[in-house]
């Protein structure tokens, strides 16, 4: 009897610890072994390698742009789902729902602001991330295909933002989408059909609203999540982020007192596949990454444990992203214009800002501006890693060896940004040149 009682007591008293360890599998780590186990055993942390290269953690190398994109996406998913509770994709109701969000839903304005500004921010962050990857030459072998996935993710981001633009069903939305889809209609042969498929009608109306809604809340986010997963998985499989060769040279200081071998010799040993076995590091971790590091890590190298180094860095980017979004959302309201008036286009009717570069080009030539040049740009972007195959200058910002490639890409970036600026600020009635000052 007493034994049983004792058992119940001990079961109960040990229950929190049992639950804790069953969920987290190990205690908060205080040893290197513990740190690696924490990353390894936790589903959410498992996406990280157990150890991460010091170079990856340099703030000015990545500027956290990829992470910012991811976190904005997460904010968008969360705020988007909350907004879905209030939204009806019907031309009769959508605008009234917007008024309700602004008028009487608790945090309605704030949710909409966060969603709106995060969406704009994500377009910008993904684009800047792409620039970072290019200027550091990080798309080179073996990361070529990950670059391709990245370009597709960028296009998906644009499309997600574009489909969301219609949903408030105000004048801004209606005419931006009318202009945007008209640009799609300029494509030869399939243009009109594509436009019809997208709108479900010849003009923007109820069918278009429903299609854009389904694309925006179901189809595109799912595709996006899958591609993001592949994007991350490939980063791991490709041996983490790119880095210059010299980053792999182990400096004695980094290895600490354990290592007496001179650095060059050490690097050779690393390249050879790890002959030197360090006694104190006698635990095994299964294949982490490919390349010089894809081995049971028992050679001295320039890596540190992901937990806590990488996690802390990620947390830092996360907090900054959230803070930025919150601040912008607290002080700037997402625009909501008058309800749709099909007979009265604003003059000028402008597409969303990230398409204003296109619209600006369309004002010179419908086909070349709206279809020809953008198609070529996307195609070239997709094929860049297969054209530019030199292995020099990887992992360094604006490497001297990549002067030509970087100059070309910088031109591409600057031209597009200038076009967007012209389209946004310098175009007035009838698309005539006006000065914003």
């Amino acid at each position, binding site marked *: 009897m007493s034994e049983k009682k004792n058992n119940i007591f001990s079961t109960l008293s040990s229950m929190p610890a049992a639950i804790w360890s069953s969920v987290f599998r190990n205690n908060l780590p205080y040893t290197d072994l513990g740190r690696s186990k924490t990353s390894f055993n936790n589903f959410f942390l498992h996406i990280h390698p157990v150890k991460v290269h010091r170079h990856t953690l340099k703030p000015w190398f990545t500027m956290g742009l990829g992470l910012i994109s991811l976190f904005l996406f997460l904010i968008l998913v969360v705020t988007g789902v909350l907004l879905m509770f209030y939204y009806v994709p019907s031309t*009769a109701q959508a605008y*009234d729902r917007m*008024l*309700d969000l*602004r*008028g*009487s839903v*608790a*945090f309605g304005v*704030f949710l909409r602001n966060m969603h709106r500004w995060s969406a704009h921010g994500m377009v910008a962050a993904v684009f800047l991330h792409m620039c970072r990857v290019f200027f550091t030459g990080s798309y080179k072998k073996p990361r070529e295909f990950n670059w391709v996935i990245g370009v597709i993710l960028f296009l998906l981001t644009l499309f997600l933002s574009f489909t969301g633009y219609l949903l408030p069903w*105000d*004048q801004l939305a209606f005419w931006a989408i009318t202009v945007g889809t008209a640009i799609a209609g300029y494509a030869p042969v399939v243009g009109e059909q594509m436009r019809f498929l997208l709108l479900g009608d010849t003009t923007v109306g109820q069918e278009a609203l429903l299609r854009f809604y389904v694309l925006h809340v179901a189809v595109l986010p799912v595709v996006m999540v899958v591609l993001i997963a592949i994007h991350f998985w490939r980063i791991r499989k490709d041996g983490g982020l790119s880095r210059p060769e010299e980053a792999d040279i182990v400096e004695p200081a980094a290895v600490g007192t354990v290592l007496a071998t001179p650095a060059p010799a050490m690097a050779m040993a690393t390249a050879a596949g790890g002959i030197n076995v360090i006694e104190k590091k006698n635990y095994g971790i299964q294949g982490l990454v490919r390349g010089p590091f894809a081995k049971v890590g028992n050679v001295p190298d320039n890596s540190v444990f992901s937990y806590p180094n990488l996690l*802390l*860095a990620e*947390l*830092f980017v996360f*907090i*900054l992203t*959230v*803070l930025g979004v*919150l*601040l912008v959302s*607290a002080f700037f309201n997402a625009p*909501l*214009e*008058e*309800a749709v*008036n099909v*007979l*009265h286009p604003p003059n000028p009717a402008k597409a969303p800002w990230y398409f204003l570069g296109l619209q600006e080009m369309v004002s010179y030539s419908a086909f070349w501006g709206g279809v020809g040049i953008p198609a070529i740009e996307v195609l070239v972007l997709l094929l860049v890693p297969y054209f530019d195959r030199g292995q020099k200058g990887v992992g360094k910002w604006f490497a001297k060896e990549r002067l030509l490639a970087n100059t070309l890409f910088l031109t591409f970036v600057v031209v597009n940004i200038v076009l967007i600026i012209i389209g946004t600020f310098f175009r007035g009635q009838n698309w005539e040149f006006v000065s914003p000052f």
Partner: protein
Amino acid sequence: MKMRLSLAIASLAILGVHGFVFYQQFFHKWETYQNSYFDQARTLAKTDQEREALASRSPKIEQIIVTQFGSTRVDRCTTCHIGIDDPRFKENNQPYKAHPYTAELGDREINGKWERRHKFADIGCTVCHDGQGRGLQEFYAHGEDEFWTEPMLGYVVQENWRPEFKDKLKGKEFMQANCAQCHTDKDFKSTPLVNKGREVFVQQNCYGCHRIEGISNGTLGPDLSDVGKKWSLNYIHESIVDPRANSATSFMPKFNMTDEEVKALTIFLKSRRGFNYAETQLDRYRATLTKSPATSPESTEPGATTPAVADAKLGEQLVQQRACAACHKIGETDGGIAPDLSYEGLIKDSEWIVAHFKDPRALIPDSIMPTFTFSDGDFRSMAAYLGTLNKPPALNNPQEIYTNLCMRCHGDKGDGHGMIAIYLDPYPRDFTNAGFMNSKPEDRLISSIKNGVGGTSMPAWGKVLNDEQIKGVLGYINQNFTKEARTEIKPRKIPDQNPVAMSPDSVARGEGIYLQRCTGCHGRKADGKGANSLDILPRPRNLLNTAFVTQTNDRRLFESIMYGVQGTAMPPWIDYGLTTEDVGDLVNYIRSLNQGKKDAGLMTLLIRGH
């Protein structure tokens, strides 16, 4: 360590933003208003029961959902205006103030207690007052937001409205536009301004160009059936007093109206919202079954008596009242849109004028003149008045003639871009086009001036000017605009009569050739509006213009087709393999298009008409 510190600071900042947002979300102005209302009501309460009921109330969003007026309305106005139906608060300031009782609105006093005719619980607030019922912040709820087209009528003047209109758009009477949503009787006595606006709409001939469902059928201007739903008062007002302010391409004339008339018209237009609130789909369907879609406005016109005989005096009055000079030129007043009527009595006879009143496009196919629906007597009187405008002008030299009679259409540079040219179809001739001018014999040019050009706005100046004057003005044109010496025109082999006899076979052959060769410019329907027509000046001829085609002899048609028209896009078709027989078939086809369409009376008018 540095990183952890900044992490902590950033987290605190996030907490701060949260505090700010929570404050915004949970401390509403309307709660303050409601609490204050409860306090005041408690001091006014007479029984304990009342006090208890008040004590148990806590601030919450109040709303009235109105489903009986078209689309569902949600009015949350009473969230702030919580004492709106509480007579004890009639002396308080807004937002506590009770809505006054007015006998005019149908409120009745029974045994010392007032009873409302329009119960708030049934009809809400925005039905009468406008504003944005869903909003809970004053800025949005009162419609001060620049994007809200229905700000509170008569009370709120938006910051972004044109400053000179702000005063004119203030006043309770603007609410009449909303009264008229349910009280649709034409002479409902509580909406005098809507009724007056409707009269002004007819008097000022707005109906000639604008369609309003159930009232008029004009097609020249925008349909105004739901103008009140789409535009704010400000926009409507502005579009009436300054048509080009909102649409740079508008050619609506500026009408000379008093402020009072503009206000009435604005209110009347604001009351046009497609569907009236009181109306259901079924009502509307029933209405279409029982009556013609548009009633003639003459029935609404006050004092429209039809005189038995045409009365030029009455005609003059009518022409003035109906603002003909808003488009036309009559004497000194010039609307700058339509032709000069100052010598109409010399140029046209009353039969033509009346026929043209009744159906302008039967005589001048591409005219933009609206079809007005005045009574026959009115038309005759107006025609009689125009008939009195028969004093030939005293013009001494060709330059004066050109300036007074020709320049309004052909322009001061003679390039066909006169003041009213863009409203004319076909476009006035460009005299600087020497290729054209010098390819036509002088006789032909003189004949165009003297006899006019059928089916166009070019009148027969022979009835105003003598032959010498006509020659003089042609010389003036040649000297100043064409500026090229006339050369001898080569004699060409052109049949005077169509050698191919008119027959169904010939017409069918002609149609075949027409479809192959001519549709690109003259259009599939032969109306001169083919795919290329917009790129061409002068525009391709409208071959369905019966008056023009009937007056043009075979010789001229043959010449134009076979040898082309110099100075225009019409090529010489004999160079492209058409034989004389082919051209004969084409001419037969073109003539067949213009045969038997019109009744005999009209045909004689057409031929005589210019």
